[in-house]
């Protein structure tokens, strides 16, 4: 097993190199001369030349690439071009609010989606099933923007159930006062596609032979669903959650923008708007690394969830 993990880690290297190369090409080549980006913020030509030397852009490209690789592995991306805040500090301080929103979202959404999917799969083929499918299709077709705009206006402004937006330094206040409306919105919007997906996973299992056997030996339908079908359907469900995990750290950038939550998502959108390349570069590279590690972890976990999988 350790040999398997080592080999998988080895396989990650070319992908990581590719990500670094892609980000490098985008920001150092396609993005143009950083001095020109900065020129709008700084006017003194001597200062721009100074900045160029500081950033290493006056060097040939392979030296620049080497600087970038060093930055990635020393966790030192320098300072933001706009606020002069250290990039590592930006990442560390913005991740908290994002997770405050996204962890409850993930837990609630997954629990609700699995529960509802089991119920819908239980009544499959009936009018209720069809009605729920039509409702979810319609719900999914409305833009997330419309949901946020209307909910913020209705629950925050008109009814006053929640604050329209805001954030404090106290985790508890954030979680109980400012987070509920964004969390509720994310769960409601994310529920429809997940419910459909999990229902299809469950229905795939329902037609298997072992389910027929379980029924044939006289098990009650409830036990068949919860004990046999659900446990087998958990494998694709867990895969789906794992794919979703890295996105947890980007958060729902739209929610963060609308509700003024100082998280990573809002930071990135802001960074894109003000051409703050170091911030975008750092977030992109580290989240890509995280994604690769999560994928590896999921593959290893399969071994425990599904005995049929073996390490080759």
């Amino acid at each position, binding site marked *: 097993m350790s040999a398997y993990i080592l080999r998988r880690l080895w396989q990650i290297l070319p992908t990581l190199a590719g*990500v670094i190369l892609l980000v490098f090409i985008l*920001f150092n080549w396609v993005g143009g001369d950083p001095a020109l980006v900065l020129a709008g913020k700084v006017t003194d030509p001597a200062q721009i030349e100074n900045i160029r030397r500081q950033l290493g852009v006056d060097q040939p490209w392979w030296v620049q690439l080497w600087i970038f690789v060093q930055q990635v592995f020393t966790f030192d991306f320098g300072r933001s071009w706009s606020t002069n805040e250290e990039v590592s500090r930006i990442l560390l301080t913005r991740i908290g609010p994002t997770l405050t929103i996204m962890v409850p979202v993930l837990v609630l959404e997954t629990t609700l989606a699995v529960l509802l999917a089991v119920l819908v799969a239980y009544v499959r083929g009936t009018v209720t099933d069809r009605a729920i499918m039509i409702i979810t299709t319609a719900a999914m077709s409305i833009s997330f923007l419309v949901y946020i705009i209307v909910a913020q206006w209705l629950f925050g402004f008109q009814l006053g159930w929640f604050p329209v937006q805001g954030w404090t330094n106290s985790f508890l206040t954030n979680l109980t006062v400012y987070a509920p409306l964004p969390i509720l919105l994310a769960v409601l919007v994310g529920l429809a596609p997940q419910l459909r997906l999990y229902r299809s996973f469950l229905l795939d299992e329902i037609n298997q032979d072992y389910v027929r056997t379980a029924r044939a030996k006289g098990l009650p339908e409830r036990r068949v669903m919860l004990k046999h079908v659900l446990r087998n359907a958990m494998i694709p469900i867990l895969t789906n959650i794992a794919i979703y995990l890295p996105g947890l750290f980007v958060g729902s950038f739209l929610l963060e923008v609308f509700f003024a939550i100082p998280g990573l998502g809002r930071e990135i959108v802001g*960074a894109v708007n003000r051409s703050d390349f170091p911030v975008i570069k750092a977030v*992109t590279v580290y*989240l890509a690394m995280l994604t690769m590690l999560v994928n590896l972890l999921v593959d290893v976990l399969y071994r425990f969830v599904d005995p049929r999988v073996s390490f080759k």
Partner: protein
Amino acid sequence: MTTGPQATPVGAASAATVAMVPPARRSPGLWALAWARLRRDRVAMLSLAIAALFIAVMLASRLGLVAANWDEEIAVSYASPAFLPDAENLEAARSAGIPRPDAGPPVDISDIDPLAPHYGEWAERSAALEQVEGSRRTTLPFGADKWGHDVLLKTIKGSEVSITVGLVAALLATLFGTLLGALAGYWGGRVDDVLEWFYNVFTSIPYILLILSFAAVLSQGLVTIILILGLTGWTGIYRLVRAEYVKHSAREYVRAAQAIGVTDLSRMFAHILPNASHVVLVQFSQHFVQFIKAEVILSFLGLGVPVTMVSWGTMLAEAQEELIIGKWWQLTAAGVSMAVLVTAISLLADAMRDALDPKIR
């Protein structure tokens, strides 16, 4: 990892041995059968009609047949929709409350005004000009926005950007994905390894970060947003098309084509592609929907189309502020038209998938 057939050129293929059988009555092909199945599906036909209607209106707008004058300020600011007869109007209500100053006789200052000799000339010249009393409408079918633009025409104009972006970006992503998937699945080996690496690189970056990274370095504009979505969105299609090619390139009909000396290019695109085209078609329609949604969000964030253009995304951005003062019609117009189009295409894609699936007969 599975590898496709290694291309070994077959030189001496003798076509003479193929017996000439007179073609019997042609059995209906995959597409004819799928179309027949789709025809029976009422929801699918309705969805198709709706999608066709949207695209027809979009094309008419693009050609300047409708909504060319959307940016004329024909109504008062925030004119109400016509179906709300007694809804009060912001501007009308405000101007009604202000008392007009008494219009007394004008003060005669001609004895001290150095321009007094010109009075007669001015009066003559102003009389020569034709004056038309301009009136702004107080209601419109779907109301007006802040500047008095007709929301209905604005929505039609906005569909132009949203649908064009969705359609062209989906075409681009499908083209990329299919081409790369075909190369990887057909050739296998080194080509496959390189393309798999490429795929892994693109998918290990969370999708939204990938989009934002591209948006950060490229300048703003319609072409840019199409490029961004097209260049980042090919991975899903690549995966599926590659799987189809791996499956098909080992099949007998492809081997038979190879045996009679059909070139690789022709085997890839004339023989295998039609058999994988149902995957491509369904993926295309799903990406179309996905990109329409993405364009709306990017435009809203100010990363999409420039402010001089109108799209459903920019309409929603305006609508956020309007909603606070109770002007909900622009939000509804943009939101509903997008939802209807997206629902229609999603349902159509589902129906197409079912109709094209040979297992469901």
